[in-house]
């Protein structure tokens, strides 16, 4: 069965304290690994797509990396506005399997 698991479920950091979020996956026919940011009461906002092991993508304080079984979302020197739920999904060709998300809180 296709499965995407994110850890931790929730993470609290102080402003400027760097950390990483984990996404492990077992998805048959995986074409890509996707990261989204979701603010409360809003739709997910696309961040990154990773297609092959070793690939890395960056956007401001966020960097996503991919191995054959896991993806990491590294957040460097986060700010309070980075607080959100971060969703990971695996799949492609019309079907994405989503993880439960990591709720990230950055305290000033």
């Amino acid at each position, binding site marked *: 069965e296709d499965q*995407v698991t994110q850890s931790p479920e929730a993470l609290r950091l102080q402003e400027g304290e760097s950390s990483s979020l984990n996404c492990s996956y077992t998805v048959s026919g995986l*074409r*890509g690994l*996707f990261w*989204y940011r979701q603010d409360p*009461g*809003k*739709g*997910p*906002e*696309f961040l990154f*797509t990773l297609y092959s092991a070793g690939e890395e993508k960056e956007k401001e304080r966020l960097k996503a990396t991919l191995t054959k079984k896991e993806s990491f979302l590294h957040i460097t020197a986060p700010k309070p506005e980075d607080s959100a739920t971060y*969703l990971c*999904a695996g*799949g*492609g*060709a*019309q*079907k*994405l399997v*989503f*993880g*439960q*998300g990591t709720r990230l809180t950055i305290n000033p």
Partner: protein
Amino acid sequence: SQTIHQWPATLVQPVGSPLSLECTVEGTSNPNLYWYRQAAGRGLQLLFYSVGIGQISSEVPQNLSASRPQDRQFILSSKKLLLSDSGFYLCAWSVLGADTQYFGPGTRLTVL
């Protein structure tokens, strides 16, 4: 640029009443369209997807149905709502043949 709209933004309906949620996409042609449900504290569950007008694939058996009457319009319906239909309903689109999906603002449905 592409824009995706959903309405209504919030909806409170009694059990047994009908449902119609609408999603439209602007700025692209022949998109793939998707309906997801996000229950409280749970991940996104794919309900339906469509690769063209009148072409609907159902992922989860339930009392919901979907229709695509126009290229950039996707409708989620029910004849009789259940309490378990409560949740956050999200529409998404992707470029035909591409993998990345882009989400709309969502509709919060509460069934009482």
